[in-house]
């Protein structure tokens, strides 16, 4: 068996006194789709951002494709070229058209020529179904369209791994489906994906694996059937019941455990 595509060892991350990650070990194989779920403040976004070093871990190691990302001497820009990232807020470049959003990084970072960058941009726009928006500016697109452009922009760089940080959380409910459809397509094509999400349907149907985090540690890790359908831990069950049926939740006394996990 080949080496895992993403390998996280004994990872810790603190912001000041706030310990967000408290010893994470995780391996994600090539072509595997992993969904990371958990309450807000559980550290799942921070974990994702540690994989491409947008956050610098306090302690521990992260390997992507065999390269140690956390090595202080690593060429982090070179590593990041192999890791695509999609943000909750899309983060398209508002001063550039859709095509330029896709072409500029290829030209500046990969040194591709103008014609080739334009060709790759057009290919990837077609993959996400937005060819007709090639000359539009991001501000004229819906949230769902912007997010699909953001995915296409990441794909145009030819990444080996894709990270998704709550890609549908900022979208109107009726626009979520289009973005999930693109992600499902990528999963079927065999892309290695790490997805922080609240979309349980997506996790259940598309993910090979679901990781439940709470309080900076991995509580439960397994197939969607194991974690979502038959959770073994009380914390997982509690989280899932609130997520699947928020209207049924009772008013609870805040425990010290939950205070630590308040959302940022």
């Amino acid at each position, binding site marked *: 068996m080949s080496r895992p595509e993403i390998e996280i060892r004994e990872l810790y991350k603190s912001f000041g006194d706030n310990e967000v990650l408290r010893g994470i070990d995780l391996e994600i194989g090539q072509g595997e789709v992993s969904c990371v779920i958990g309450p807000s403040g559980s550290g799942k976004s921070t974990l994702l951002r540690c994989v491409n070093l947008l956050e610098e871990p306090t302690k521990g190691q992260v390997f992507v494709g065999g390269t140690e990302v956390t090595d202080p001497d690593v060429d982090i820009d070179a590593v990041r*070229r192999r890791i695509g990232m999609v*943000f909750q*807020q899309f983060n398209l*470049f508002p001063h550039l058209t859709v095509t330029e959003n896709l072409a500029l*990084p290829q030209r500046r*970072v990969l040194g591709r020529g103008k014609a080739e960058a334009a060709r790759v941009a057009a290919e990837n726009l077609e993959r996400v179904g937005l060819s007709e928006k090639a000359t539009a500016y991001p501000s004229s697109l819906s949230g769902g369209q912007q997010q699909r452009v*953001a995915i296409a922009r*990441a794909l145009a760089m030819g990444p080996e791994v894709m990270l998704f940080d709550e890609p549908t959380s900022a979208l109107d409910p009726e626009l979520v489906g289009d973005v999930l459809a693109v992600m499902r397509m990528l999963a079927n094509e065999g892309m290695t994906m790490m997805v922080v999400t609240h979309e349980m349907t997506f996790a259940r149907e598309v993910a090979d694996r679901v990781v439940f985090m709470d309080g900076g540690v991995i509580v439960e890790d397994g197939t969607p059937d194991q974690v979502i359908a038959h959770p073994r831990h009380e914390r997982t069950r509690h989280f899932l019941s609130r997520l699947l049926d928020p209207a049924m939740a009772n008013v609870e006394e805040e425990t010290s455990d939950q205070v630590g996990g308040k959302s940022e």
Partner: protein
Amino acid sequence: MTEVTVQPKKKGLTRRQKRRVSRGVQYVVFVGALVALAVGADWDRLQNQFAQQDIAEQMFPDVITLALKNTVLYTVSGFLVGLVLGMVLALMRLSSVGPYRWIAGIYIEIFRGLPALLIFIFIGVAVPLAFPGTEIPGGTYGKVALALGLVAAAYMAETFRAGIQAVPKGQMEAARSLGFSPARAMVSIILPQAFRIILPPLTNELVLLFKDSSLVLFLGVTLEERELSKFGRDLASQTANSTPILVAGLCYLLVTIPLGFVVRRMETKAQEAVK
């Protein structure tokens, strides 16, 4: 608790009526002051001193081809120096390297705190003393560009910094996650967006410099290097009449008023773009 309290109808004026009366009083006071000024002033003497047509006519075409041209030249060259230096200072100010931040901070505090006049005197006197034999390239033009640039850079650095910080953090993160180096991301992604934000304040800075260029007379200039203020003053003393001052003043407005109009246009456009 929920009963609606109806304001009892007081006699006297409603709020709206009071507002109208107050507005009316303000207009009357304003117009009254204008009339008093107009009636009180000695228009004949004013016209004699400031609006002699023959003196005004003899200023042309030099006031435009020489004085205004030099004013514009000084301003633009100073602005360009300030732009480059200000950008460098802003990036130093935002740097993660402590000493860069301190140096930029000290520079900005000093040059923002000193009157531009002192900087001109400093450039004109202290620099030749400190480095005897060295000439600032470009002669007077070089000195003015340097003096105006040094002053402008301090203000522009703060403008640039605010503009860079106004670009959302996610833009830098997106660029870095695509593999841009910090410098590349700054040049390709952040600065183009920051420029749009700071175009109006930057143009305001241009207007300020335009006026500050009058300080060049403290450097001692030849006839050919005179700008509007110096030109106007010289002619005023030659003719023992102040008409040239008025004409020079009108020449400033000829540039600053359209420029102000352009700034407002850009501000409206920038606001539309944000929306």
